[in-house]
């Protein structure tokens, strides 16, 4: 898998983790179990900065732009379709065994696509 694509997926998961720390239902459950750490959010934000620094400026810019617009910048391809907008993706790309070796975007919504292995 393309290293930049891996980093974008990890960045997405990190953003979900940060967003979850703001969700009252998750915080409540985790606090009941004693799983919440006071400085977790700050540490995650610091880690996010580090991650962002290791991502190519072009892809980082696209990621931030897509996140602001859709809320999710990276989506899987499901049955040859973009999981974000359900547009059918080009057959030539979907059938390429090396499809995860470069970063592909949805021709309609522009989201970054990956194929689950």
């Amino acid at each position, binding site marked *: *898998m393309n290293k930049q694509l*891996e980093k974008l*997926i*990890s960045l*997405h*998961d*990190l953003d*979900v*983790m940060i967003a*979850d720390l703001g*969700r009252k*239902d*998750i915080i409540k*459950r*985790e606090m*009941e*179990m*004693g*799983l*919440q*750490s006071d*400085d*977790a959010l700050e*540490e*995650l934000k610091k*880690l996010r900065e580090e991650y962002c620094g290791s991502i190519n400026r072009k892809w980082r810019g696209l990621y931030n732009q897509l996140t602001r617009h859709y809320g*999710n910048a*990276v*989506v*899987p391809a499901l049955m040859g379709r973009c999981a974000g907008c359900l547009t059918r993706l080009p057959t030539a790309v979907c059938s390429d065994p090396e499809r*995860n070796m470069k970063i592909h975007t949805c021709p309609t919504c522009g989201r970054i696509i990956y194929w*689950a*292995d």
Partner: protein
Amino acid sequence: MLPRELLITCSTHTVFYIREVNGKGECILKYTALCKFELSATSREEAIAELLGLFPVGERSQNLLAGALDIREKVGATVVHNTIVLPHCRSILVDKLTIAVGRSEAGIGWPDKKIHTVILFVSPVRLNAPQDHTRFLSHIAGRIKKYGDKIVTAENQKELLDLLGFQHEELESR
């Protein structure tokens, strides 16, 4: 309280299905859980990798999930009831809530506590997923609160999963 039903199928490792059904008998939620009773791992990283090895995803996805779970553990260890640990996260790399339960008699360094039971789960990132995530978290929290000591000393896989609320019936070997 919704009735739960768990169906087991056997393969190289044990796969458990917990189905939650509503009053009309309609399946409204289905969890998949994988179990490895004897973990060989001795460290946190090894235990997470060993349990992720059961996940129906490729090696690259397993590595990315291991990275996400590692970050979660670094910002706040998920150790509960002294020797039970609940590594968990939400990720776009899975399409349904996937659970892997592991147990180590010798103990796993986590990293400064010795733990014996690992309940690892990863939820997907989609609209209704936070509800699945919190629902499962509530379920596990309740079981640990009620049977924490028994879970730690469970002698076999069936007992461990029974204590975790997996009512089950064996169907057939695949």
